[in-house]
């Protein structure tokens, strides 16, 4: 319950330690696979199969089944890659930065946000592999000892990407897993089935909940949060260098690192909202993921949306102000050229719609937030498409101007990547507590402590 003057509580409804654990662990242990979950999982699997088909066709026949050509040598694959990686940033921000900033409201969303990050990075990671002409040699981008005595070419942003994305995935996975250990132990202790006890037991790494374990846990968690914090900024900066280091007009822009990071957080929070709102409705988690969470996320969405809007504006202004005819043309082409619908759609979804979040009424409405979040996701994908394709298709020499027409396989790979995400996410919901039990209990502890004081 909230009054207009006081913000809604982080943890609503009277809860005890037991009730928190019961509720969250119950989703995994007792609820079982209901129809809704089965349907979602089936859709995920179907898309995953579509991806399998698309990838098989790609590996068998060649990159040519996509719409890429000269000059547009990068198309959906790279746009998807950047989009998925960007989505992952919200999870890390919630997990790490909000932890270090002592924002208690992160407790109930950080588990599935971090899971979202990991699965998003997995989805993203397939694209740099698939888009290679000879994907069987992808490992040449890594510095491994080889008979040719060759290092990768370190001036290339793609090599930096390898380090950035692999670091990001590793840290995120570790961070998520370490945080998961106490909960896995809980599930091990509560599980009714033998398999459950064994599997959870193995992954719980022998957690007994002793004081020493907790102390080590806190230290490890804090350290990992500290390691993960710079990643929020660095990973997408490095990804933005894929474009900023190139000299293409429309890519070669110093605003790209902060603009991309802001965009990443923007799209990531939108995805968190897109996941959180249905989850809390389906699993009745309104008391754990409260209106306060939604409002805070909406505010972050608004702020990052404004930064992104600033990025658009300053890019356009600088293109005009620079007097550089190539840059000016890129801007003009975005506004009026063959892909203008993508560009205007992007402005609509990323700049215009999020302005609704100024209204508290909108921030309070879960449905409105969901719609805006989905639109932002689409808008951010459009932004990546605009950046990748529109800058490539008309660059310096008009004789090399061409068009990019996505093929069936482009779409299949894009939607197929959702298959990976949904499959893993539904498995996550089913088998792993989607809210951190231990941290929610800690939150309850603090609130009781405050109430008592």
């Amino acid at each position, binding site marked *: 319950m909230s009054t207009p003057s006081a913000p809604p509580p982080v943890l609503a409804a009277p809860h005890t330690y037991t009730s928190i654990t019961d509720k969250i662990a119950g989703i995994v242990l007792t609820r079982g696979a209901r129809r809704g979950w089965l349907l979602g999982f089936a859709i995920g699997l179907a898309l995953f199969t579509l991806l399998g088909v698309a990838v098989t066709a790609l590996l068998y*026949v*060649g*990159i*040519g089944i996509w*719409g*890429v*050509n*000269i*000059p*547009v*040598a*990068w198309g959906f694959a790279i746009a998807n890659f950047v989009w998925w990686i960007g989505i992952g940033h919200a999870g890390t921000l919630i997990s790490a930065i909000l932890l270090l900033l002592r924002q208690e409201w992160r407790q109930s969303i950080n588990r599935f946000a971090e899971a979202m990050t990991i699965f998003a990075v997995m989805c993203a990671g397939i694209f*740099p592999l698939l*888009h*290679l*002409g*000879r*994907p069987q*040699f*992808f490992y*040449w*981008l890594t510095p491994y000892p080889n008979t040719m005595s*060759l290092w*990768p*070419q370190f*001036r*290339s*942003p*793609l*090599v930096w990407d*390898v380090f950035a994305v692999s670091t990001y995935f590793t840290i995120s996975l570790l961070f998520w897993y370490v945080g998961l250990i106490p909960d896995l132990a809980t599930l091990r202790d509560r599980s009714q089935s033998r398999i459950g006890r064994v599997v959870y037991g193995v992954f719980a790494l022998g957690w007994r909940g002793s004081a020493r374990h907790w102390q080590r846990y806190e230290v490890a968690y804090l350290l990992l949060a500290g390691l993960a914090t710079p990643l929020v900024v660095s990973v997408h900066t490095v990804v933005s260098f*894929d474009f900023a*280091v*190139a*000299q*293409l007009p429309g890519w070669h822009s110093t605003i790209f690192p902060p603009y991309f990071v802001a965009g990443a957080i923007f799209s990531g929070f939108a995805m968190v909202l897109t996941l959180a709102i249905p989850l809390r409705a389906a699993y009745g988690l309104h008391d754990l993921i409260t209106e306060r969470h939604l409002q805070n996320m909406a505010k972050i969405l608004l702020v990052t949306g404004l930064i992104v809007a600033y990025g658009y504006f300053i890019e356009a202004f600088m293109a005009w102000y620079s007097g550089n*005819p*190539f840059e000016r*043309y890129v801007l003009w082409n975005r506004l009026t050229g063959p892909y203008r619908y993508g560009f205007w759609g992007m402005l609509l979804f990323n700049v215009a719609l999020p302005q609704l979040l100024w209204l508290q009424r909108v921030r309070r409405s879960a449905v409105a937030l969901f719609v805006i979040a989905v639109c932002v996701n689409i808008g951010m994908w459009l932004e990546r498409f605009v950046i990748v394709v529109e800058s*490539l298709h008309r*660059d*310096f*020499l*008009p*004789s*090399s*101007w*061409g*068009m990019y*027409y996505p093929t069936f396989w482009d779409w299949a790979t894009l939607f197929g990547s959702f298959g990976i995400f949904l499959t893993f996410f539904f498995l996550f919901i089913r088998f792993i507590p989607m809210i951190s039990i231990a941290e929610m209990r800690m939150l309850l502890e603090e609130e009781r402590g405050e109430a008592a004081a």
Partner: protein
Amino acid sequence: MTDLDAVRARLAAARGEQYWRTLEEVADSAAFEELLAREMPAAAVQWLDPMRRRSFLKLMAAALALGGLGGCGERPSEPIVPYVRTPEGVIPGRPLYFATAMPSAGGFGLGLLVESHLGRPIKVEGNPRHPASLGATDAHAQASVLTLYDPERLQAVTFAGAIRTWADFLGAARAALGAQRAQRGAGLRLLTETVTSPTLGAQLRAVLEQYPDARWHQWEPSRADAVRAGALAAFGDDVRPIHHLAAADVIVALDADFLGCGPAHLAEVREFAARRRPGQPMNRLYVAESGLTPTGAKADHRLGLRAAAVAPLARALAAAVGVPGATAPHADQLPARWVEAVARDLRRHRGRSLVVAGETQTAEVQALAHLTNVALGNVGHTVSYVPAVEVRSEDQLASLKTLVDDMAAGRVEVLVVLGGDPAFNAPADVPFAEAMGRVPLRIHLSLYGNDTAARSHWVVPAAHYLESWSDVRAFDGTVTVVQPLIAPLYGGKSAHELLAVLGEGATQAGYDIVRARWQAERRGADFDDAWRSWLEAGVVPGTASATRYVLPRRAPAPSQADGQEGLEVVFRPDPAVHDGRFASNAWLQELPRPLSRLTWGNAVHVAPTTAAHLGLRAEQVVELALRGRTVRAPVVVAAGQAEGSVTVHFGYGGRGPFHEHGFNAYAIRPSDALWSGWGLEMRPTGARSPLARTQHHQRMEGRDIVRAFPAGHEPPRATPEPAAAEPSLYPEWSYAGYRWGMAIDLSACVGCNACVVACQAENNIPVVGKREVLRGREMHWIRIDTYFTGDPAAPGTYFMPVPCMHCENAPCELVCPVEATVHGAEGLNEMVYNRCVGTRYCSNNCPYKVRRFNFFEYSRWNAESLRLLYNPDVTVRSRGVMEKCTYCVQRIVQTRIAAEKEGRRIRDGEVVTACQQACPAEAIVFGDLNDEESRVRLLKTEGRNYALLEELNTRPRTTYLAALSNPNPELA
């Protein structure tokens, strides 16, 4: 080496431990140490250390045993036999060059030097000694080697579609000819294309003597009968003009694409381009034409007008220079100012001007052009006349019509068609295919299974010119003996061999036929030497036609202008597939046409105003109707096309591979409007047909891409290469040895596309097909960009060849994650195919977009015959790998090796890239920038030298020389 033999003998006798002991003995001998020091100096140093020595011996024992120094145990004896009769001069890995000639369309010869690797011809170059080539080639000659290996070629003698042997054919032919002999050959007809070959001419004459009532007809769809008629009208003599453009200050082209096509066009391009360079008085070119051609693109002043309006223009000019009998047309028909200025310019340059009439124009225009040249005193200076080079110069349309009449009337019993495809390309109102059906025995000698072959009884596979002995005359009469480079791949027969069957009734080898004919002509003991020298040089000296003295007549009366209603249609052979003979050649199919950049198909070229008027846009399909016949064609909105006139290219639509990509213009080409005519109707059908173009945007969009200056106004000479001005984090590259660079002269380039096909042939560049070109994935390493400036109805046109720039600060090198593209020690940007993983970042960062990617497995690994075509010095790339122009690094390396063996530096002009070698205009110059006297270094100091997109600081090694023009101040 006797010590070594002794050692060998000793080792051979040793066994086991004894062997080892013996090896130690061997090692101790002074002879062995000397051998070691000589052969492996590095190992000799190790030798001194006893520990190392032991391990060395262990290692070397096995090697020595394999090398024959050891002799442990019996080895099975497998005698191998070396090349017992090695062909003279063959060193595997080193190509041989043979001089031959290609009979190009029109029957005229183009002298060539063909590169042969181990008995396989793989690359065509021009023969510098041949007057039609001067070392250059055109796109058709470059692509001809693909036709040789084309798996679609006819591979067996067939009768009614069933495979037979040559002996079967001989039997049937003898029987039929026996019957003909009885009636003096009254039912025998021979149909050939234009014949210039002296041997074939002699054979034909012999056959006609044997069968006095037989007839020999000639027909080629690209034949312009008006040339002969015009000469007869002007001089009463069947002569042909030879243009000496080097001496011409003013050139007026009346619908004449002399830079783009014609038997002499390579030589003419050379002479024309030489007069477009600074440092000497520049020529001035006026062009009047209906559709934009490469000649029109190079014009200083171009007038777009309907083909029918060229005759009044010719008359106006003739009257203005004082040709007797020429009357000026009505003033309102032509732009008076233009005509007056041109006439004044011509008069000012008497004896140094030239009027060229297009071969496709009417006889009246041709005659007027001749007479104008005479009146201007140009004869003997810029133009001279020689007798017609063909064995029999005749009105081929009339000849064909006579034949068709005979066939339709049933007077023909045996029809022998040597080459060509008359059933496909005869005029639409001359029913050749139908009439042919009435002939009881039809024999066709053909490369492909085309329409005529489908209607013939006996189809004999033709031998390609690279497989046959023959001879051919160039445009000036020079004879070349055509020698084969490879035995016929599919048992093909040349026209000589087939005619020998008709003449002698027996099989005769082409070699014997040709040689016998020449031996008969040139009697004497030194024939063998002479023959060898002819084959070596590629020309028979002294065979150029002698100049003919001509007496001008009065100007012909103006032809009556018929009701000029509706649209005018102008027929032209397709720039790449010509009259259809090259339609099966994938390189030519994929060759972007010079102005429309169209591939894999033809279209109807419509003027922008006409298109707007009729509501037509590119790729829309229209129905063309002429004299009651229709055909559907896609539209191209062509800049520079004259209003009210559309250009249609014939060559597509027949039977055979790839013909289906275009429409059949022959279906509406009537005999009374073979080259142009009135009354065309164009109706939109609402359908669309995608056009595979490689360049979609032909405007420069206000960017500094092609620089052009009026002559004398170019920037002043630059100081020799200024030092790098931009600061950089990275040190400058230093080049102690060679530093390669290239300069491309935009003033000279005529957009002929020879360089594109030459590069494709030299570097094993795959063909991707129409669907992939539609997707934007063509693979040409060098492309020619065509840019238009100004009014679309009368545009300025520029050709810009764009190969890899080999930038000093290459943006591609920076972003490749696996170092697959690196900076070479001599300045080249080197592409390492086997390291490329295919991220395509290099292509994204290349501002010139010269990189090409193998999106699919484009190289044809499976076609047996096409594998023979690959240049063994160049890697064949597979799927997923990036490729681009390499400055023909294989040629650089070969030359460097040869130079190093001789202990000297590479001389300027020794390394010639494929594109440079093919270019008739000598527009591409390549060489060593560290060589102070190299031509390329000199060219780069010219004021008009600039780098494309130089503000990006890529510092490309390929720079451009701005185009120069010479406008007439009166018309500016």
